[in-house]
């Protein structure tokens, strides 16, 4: 039973094809700009949260690293972006955004060596410790960071010199959505690359991965660095679009909420963070309207219930829904040659 190299290549590449579900998702996402004109602020928050969750998914869902410390990168970049804008060091937001991402990635690189040692609990503690430490530092140097009052007096220049962030949040939202999409495409490429494949092998069977020549530690350092960079971009987006940054970016609650987002949405398939962010924001908004003071109770309850039901069972439900959608897509594809629907060779 022999097979040609071309068929092998095709087989391996098929996983990376953009499914109809994905295309529909992004069309809808961009359509929200016109569909929900009054909701820009919450949509923008959702987009930022989605990017933040995506960054965690890369290390949690693809490399198996449990971290409570993504807030460290979020907050670090948040303050960085705020400070460079406030003191006029970098005026153009896009450049500031890229710089924030890069410097936060560097921070991620430096701390990655701490994170890769020890057990799950050690990792949890170290990641949490780093983010709380940064919070304390920000508090200590309140003459620079504004301390408990937050960073004041930040003024953001128009994006690319043309698009000023207005009060209704329209430009802010479009900006965040575009950044989210670009980061998503990059993450997607990474995940479907040989590098991404090696990450999945590390997560699935670290012992064997090392035994076939995968330099485990370096791959994990690399993905942790990338993840830190993305989390940083999310943090910088928040500061840029709200012209404000405060100490709660480093809080435990923020990291815990992030875990909740990924639990709701599922890990390991990239869209978990995005879907989870949407559901979470919706849930939060709804609950906050119901019980403004105690919505935390219901979030806690949701967490408990989700765990009790079991993520496997929920992942099973998600899989059923997904395969239904995929089947729908495959049925649609040949009928839409415009989307490049040459009938694939079976399943």
């Amino acid at each position: 039973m022999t097979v040609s190299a071309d068929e092998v290549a095709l087989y391996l590449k098929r996983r990376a094809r953009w499914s109809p579900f994905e295309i529909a998702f992004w069309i809808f996402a961009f359509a929200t700009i016109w569909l929900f004109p009054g909701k820009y602020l919450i949509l923008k928050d959702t987009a930022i949260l989605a990017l933040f969750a995506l960054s965690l998914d890369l290390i949690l869902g693809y490399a198996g690293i449990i971290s409570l410390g993504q807030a460290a990168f979020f907050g670090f970049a948040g303050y960085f972006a705020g400070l460079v804008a406030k003191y006029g060091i970098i005026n153009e937001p896009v450049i500031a955004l890229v710089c924030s991402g890069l410097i936060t990635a560097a921070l991620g690189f430096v701390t990655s060596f701490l994170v890769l040692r020890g057990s799950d609990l050690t990792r949890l503690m170290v990641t949490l410790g780093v983010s709380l430490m940064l919070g304390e530092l920000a508090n200590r140097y309140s003459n620079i960071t504004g301390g408990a009052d937050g960073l004041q007096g930040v003024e953001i220049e128009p994006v690319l010199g043309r698009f000023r962030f207005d009060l209704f949040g329209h430009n802010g939202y479009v900006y965040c959505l575009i950044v989210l999409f670009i980061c998503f495409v990059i993450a997607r490429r990474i995940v479907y690359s040989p590098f991404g494949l090696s990450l999945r092998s590390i997560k699935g069977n670290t012992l064997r991965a090392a035994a076939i020549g995968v330099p485990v530690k370096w791959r994990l350092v690399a993905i942790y660095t990338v993840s830190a960079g993305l989390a940083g971009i999310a943090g910088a987006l928040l500061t840029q679009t709200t012209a404000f940054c405060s100490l709660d970016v480093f809080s435990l609650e923020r990291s815990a909420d992030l875990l909740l987002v990924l639990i709701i949405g599922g890990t390991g398939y990239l869209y978990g963070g995005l879907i989870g962010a949407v559901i979470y924001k919706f849930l939060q908004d709804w609950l906050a309207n119901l019980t403004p003071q105690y919505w935390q109770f219901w979030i806690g309850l949701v967490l408990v219930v989700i765990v009790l039901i079991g993520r496997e069972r929920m992942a099973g439900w998600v899989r059923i829904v997904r395969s239904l959608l995929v089947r729908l897509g495959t049925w649609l594809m040949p009928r839409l040659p415009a989307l490049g629907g040459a009938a694939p060779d079976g399943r």
Partner: protein
Amino acid sequence: MLTILYDGIAYGMLLFVLACGLSVTLGLMNFINLAHGAFAMAGGYCTVFLVNRLGLPFALGLPIAFLITALIGGLFERTLYVHVYARSHLDQVLFTIGLVFMSVAAVDYTMGSSQQFVQIPEALQGQFEVDGIGMGKYRLLIIVICGLLTVALQLILAKTRFGSRLRAAVDDQRVARGLGINVGAVFGITFAFGSGLAGLGGALGAEILGLDPTFPLKYMIYFLIVVTVGGTSSITGPFFASILLGIGDVAGKYYVPKLGAFVIYAIMIIVLIWRPQGLFARGAAR
């Protein structure tokens, strides 16, 4: 300076009583219980209610707080926690964080969000002057009670049958079961006891640590530091880790006030870099 040492030791011993239940739980069932602080909070509020509202004497309020919290712990263990034992660490973290959120909000709702103070008896207020060192009377009580508890715990572990069953189960669960030890019962009792201790610690600590609904969130990290640095395979590990942390925190807040807890986090990270399994742990990672 000696006052700082004294305060630090008192603080550390309090931390120890609060955290040792968590340490045993983690070492015994490999279960990360981030809601441990919630039991401490329960004990604190219990005492507040008993002493302030019902007028019970402080000396009675403490043991009752212990008992009630132990009961709650045992109840939760049988009904909720038992479903999550076999799950991954991530699930345990999420589950217990969820419980924390719920308990924080519930207490906020029922008892209000302001800080609560326990009416400690006259005899315990103020301080002794010994050689020019101010030794708080209340802190002395803490040192005495916690010291006695530590000794009692060591004795229970080392000298009683239950203690040896517990140590066996911590060492190797499967073998312990194979020897006929009812590991489930051991865990249930230990969990209840540990929660009770946390409640007692919360009651004792209300005066020093401050009791409000955010207590579990504020102090969870401290307990986790004690457990991570001290390791889970002994009582002495977390004990020394607690003392170290207690002194470190008090000293840090005195000498570099603005950095506050930075000192502790830094200590923890340095320790974990040096010894990922904790300062006093022996053997392989879990």
